[in-house]
């Protein structure tokens, strides 16, 4: 369990999440991809904290990341509802233009 191995795992998680964000059509699935990316980020952050600089500031950063994830989740679900209400769809492809 060295820094490099943990980082490689985090990179793998990030890549999988990126694949999901790029390939999924449903808004919620896209958000799941984003979640996975942030998952990878949290793991990487924790690895850096433990192996390079185990100070409280690192933990604060991780908390901020988690807060960001939360905000993103909330906003994403709200937008999905608004989209569904106005366009009757939950797929990002139908949300390509601004107004109708």
């Amino acid at each position, binding site marked *: 369990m060295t820094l490099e191995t943990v980082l490689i795992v985090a990179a793998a998680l990030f890549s999988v999440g990126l694949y999901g*964000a*790029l*390939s999924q059509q449903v808004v919620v699935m896209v958000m799941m991809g984003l979640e996975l990316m942030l998952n990878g980020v949290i793991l990487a952050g924790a690895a850096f904290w433990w192996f390079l600089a185990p100070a409280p500031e690192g933990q604060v950063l991780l908390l901020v990341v988690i807060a960001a994830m939360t905000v993103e989740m909330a906003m994403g679900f709200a937008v999905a509802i608004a989209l569904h209400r106005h366009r009757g769809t939950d797929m*990002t492809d139908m*949300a390509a233009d601004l107004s109708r």
Partner: protein
Amino acid sequence: MTGDAALWSLVGLPALVGAGLGLGGRQTERFAVPVSLATAVIWVALAVGVAIGRPAVDAPFMVGTPVGLAVDTLSALVVVTVAVITLLVLMFAAADVTGSRGRFHGLMLLFAAAVAMTATATTLPALLVAWEVMGATSYALIGFGWQQDGKVQAGATAFLTTRAADLGLYTAAGAALAGGAGLALADLPEAGEGWRHVVAAGVLVAALGKAAQLPFSFWLSRAMEGPSPVSALLHSAAMVAMGGYLLLRTHDLLAATGWASVAAAWAGALTALLLGAVAVAQRDLKQLLAASTSAQLGFVVLAAGLGAVAGGTAHLVAHAATKALLFLVAGAWLSALGTKRLSALRGAARRWPLVGATAGIGALSLAGVAPLSLWATKDEVLAAALVESPALYVVGLAAAALSAAYAGKVLVTVCRRLPADAEARYDDEVRGTRHVGVLERAPLIVLAAAAALLVVLALPPVSHSLRRALGDTSAPTAGVLELLGSAVLALVVLAAVVRWRPPEPGWAAGWLGLESATHVLVVGPTLKLAGALARFDDRVLDRAVDESARLTAVTACRLARADVRGVDGLVEVVARSTRRLGDLARLPQTGQLHEYYLQAAAVLAVGVVLLIMLG
């Protein structure tokens, strides 16, 4: 003061009146004759006045070279002679010339003014101006009857020949300036060594041309196409005489260069001889008189070459009177009988006794019969020739014999009995009027008197004072033996002509072929050169201009095309590329979320790589 005014008027009065009459057009027809005769009378008075008063004036012209007029003995004699003869000729012309009187009298008066200026000029500018005006009026007067074929051509021949000879005078003026002698006629002998020869040569050529000496004599033959009064004034008494006058005036210059005086003397002598032969061979009265003018002026040129100014001047004056008389007679017979062929004029002297008598006096004077004027004046000249060179004397004597021959030919022809078929031979030139009026007879009487009485100029009492006045005291004078000898010679030749007809060789009848020679040697090459230059101008210079114009147009087109294709094209390309870049920039704006994520990921990756590489 009045002397100066008289001298200016001498030149100015005939010039102004002549110009007025000439330019006046048809309105002047009615009063042209009275005005011109009145002007001529006043002019005679002015001439006598300046001859007595001897004034001198000058007016500024170029720096250091004024236009100067002055009257000394030589000028006085010439001016008075010309003035009187002009008056008489104008009287004759009042009856003889019936069309375009304003133009005729205007040109004659203009000519008179030019002669006055030539005879009184003291500087080359004045001389040149007057010289040229004389030539121009001569051209206009020879071509007076321009409606008929050939008259203007004859005038052009005369004008071009004398004008070509006048180049000598211009060269002389230039050489005088270059030689540092200034342009005053009296100062010409003081030019620098080499320049003096050029000056003398130039003056000699110009004078020979104007005086119709060899090799320029042929123009005088062509000049006979003009009206008779014109021949009487210009081509016997005034214009051709000015050539002789110029040489008499510049005899110092000719003597100073040595070769010029010898050349002048021989030119004059040879002309007298050869043109005398030509005169003997002529069948037309005016042509004979023209050749005889040239021959007699040869004597004047001989005198100038020898430095015998008094003899030359006397001969000039006497010949003027005699020749004017003979030309007027020829003119009277031409307008009365309509012909000037000698064969048709047989016995013409008997039809009008007065005209015939005056013609006889003129012919006898021309022959050199004593005691008429040309006998003694010729001997003055020949006396100087004898002293200078016996060869010259022999040639001169032969010329005198020939003059007796041609004068005798005229005398014999016109004094014959009238043939029965005389009437049939008349009217081959114009319709004759069969009438000789008073205005035509009166001048003849005066001129005949002058031809007889002017002999005094060459005989002791008057000739001595003439020599003193002309500063010519050292010249040899004719002795009694010589005078007697020449009188006898003239009578002998006259008798021979009466007895046997004089021969008429072809070379002499054709004026020695001078005109055709001039055409071949001078006119032909000049015209060819002109043609070549014109072709050069067209093909090279003109083409250069055309080509440059064409090239300019072509260049303009090319530049325009370059501008449209190049510059404009560049601008178009820039605009098109910008538009395409703008279109390209819109492509990422798909609205698709996953594509935006992809773009963001790519940009981030590039940014990170750049950061790592740069940082």
